[in-house]
């Protein structure tokens, strides 16, 4: 049983949550102009990362709110939890630089990028 920290309710058992797959998949800006290939990508293709993965969860048996999580898909360790609408923390870079001490830098503020900026829920 995994233990997740809901941004609203705090630490709760995994059984209170439901999975929502990859986070930050934006709805196409111009759906009418998409090719079949692009529709396929939007509907059926998701990252299947081995390692750090940004994903959505919903606290169904608690506040019933969706949130995002960065989790290691090999160790299942949760690296970051953040609210829907918040920009993805630069967790990947942070952890990468933390493992190489000579490159350790003060944490930069999260950078906006086109994917997260237009994210739907």
């Amino acid at each position: 049983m995994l233990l997740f920290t809901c941004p609203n309710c705090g630490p709760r058992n995994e059984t209170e949550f439901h999975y929502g797959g990859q986070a930050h998949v934006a709805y196409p800006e111009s759906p009418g102009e998409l090719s079949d290939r692009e529709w396929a990508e939007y509907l059926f293709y998701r990252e299947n990362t081995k390692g750090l993965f940004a994903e959505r969860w919903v606290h169904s048996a608690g506040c019933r709110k969706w949130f995002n999580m960065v989790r290691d898909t090999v160790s299942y360790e949760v690296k970051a939890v953040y609210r829907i609408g918040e920009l993805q923390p630069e967790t990947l870079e942070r952890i990468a630089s933390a493992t190489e001490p000579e490159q350790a830098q003060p944490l930069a503020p999260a950078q906006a990028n086109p994917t997260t900026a237009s994210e739907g829920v």
Partner: protein
Amino acid sequence: MSADHLPEHPEFLWRNPDPKKSYDAVIVGGGGHGLATAYFLAKNHGMRNIAILEKGWLAGGNMARNTTIIRSNYLWDESAAIYEHSLKLWEILPEELDYDFLFSQRGVMNLAHTLGDVRESMRRVGANQLNGVDAEWLDPKQVKELCPILNINDNIRYPVMGATYQPRAGIAKHDHVAWAFARKCDEMGVDIIQNCEVTGFIKDGNKVTGVKTTRGNINTEKVGLCAAGHTSVLAEMAGFRIPIQSHPLQALVSELHEPVHPTVVMSNHVHVYVSQAHKGELVMGAGVDSYNGYGQRGSFHVIEEQMAAAVELFPIFARAHVLRTWGGIVDTTMDASPIVGTTPVENMFVNCGWGTGGFKGTPAAGLTFAHTIATGSPHTLNKPFGMDRFETGHLIDEHGAAAVAH
């Protein structure tokens, strides 16, 4: 007893060769599907200068972790065709491979617990019969006759309202299946190379020309990926995307018991499937863990729910003990059907997405994937299972028959 007195080591079933500099084809993944593919490449297409690369040991991934159920009672025509062909191959393979891997056609029952289940099941029985797949509908009394330890009382949360039954379905000894294929592959000159992890691909433009491995670079004309849960990792190395998600799937066994369970019972609704292995252990599986994962383990509450379902259906199991549990990594697609076909990279082919049901598909995956690799285009049976279906919209939605139980 000193080492001098130990019996001779039994004859090895395959050699452990070092990789050669080049092959006509390289299969990545030494599980059931990789072995079956190499077998049919050698046997049906005369390709003998081929290698199977396995990062761990032979058949140590999902081939060692599945619950060995073999059936072909899928709903849609495309699925019924490929799985029924697979079942027919299972029926002849013990003789063809000259190896008795204890294929036991003890039948598979899929229980119905709701009116929705009943309607879906009857529809599937009808579809199966039209496709030449043996299938029948059983009422609860007939269910009880076939499997006396099943509880068909209506005092449980989800009473048994009937079941579909496929008499030709059954189980086999998975390790022996792998060894049977491996021995024949080896006899035909296939190099089975274990402890050889693929770390990259060598490409000339968009054409693959070689494989980088932990045991050096290997040139090859063709590459076939049979890596199940790790296919996305390989696809990324090769430079293309593949629409699969890897999930943990758990199973468990009890300690050994006298024979009590004569068939295979599966329930999608309460999420458990049970058979009793030849040795006597009860073998059970459940649904996948919901999250993406590569850890070869899942969460305990899944096991707990599976046990609760098993004890309700089989009250006799309340006194059995779990001996061990484990997890494998299954590669699921959005339509719960496999992907067997070409890739955007020239001379690279992919067989994946079998999700929770790859074991039963082993012979047909091997046959059709070998055809695809050898000829460069799909066999009739796997033509509908190309990646292009996600663009054309010709999905083969088998969630009803495949999403949970295998």
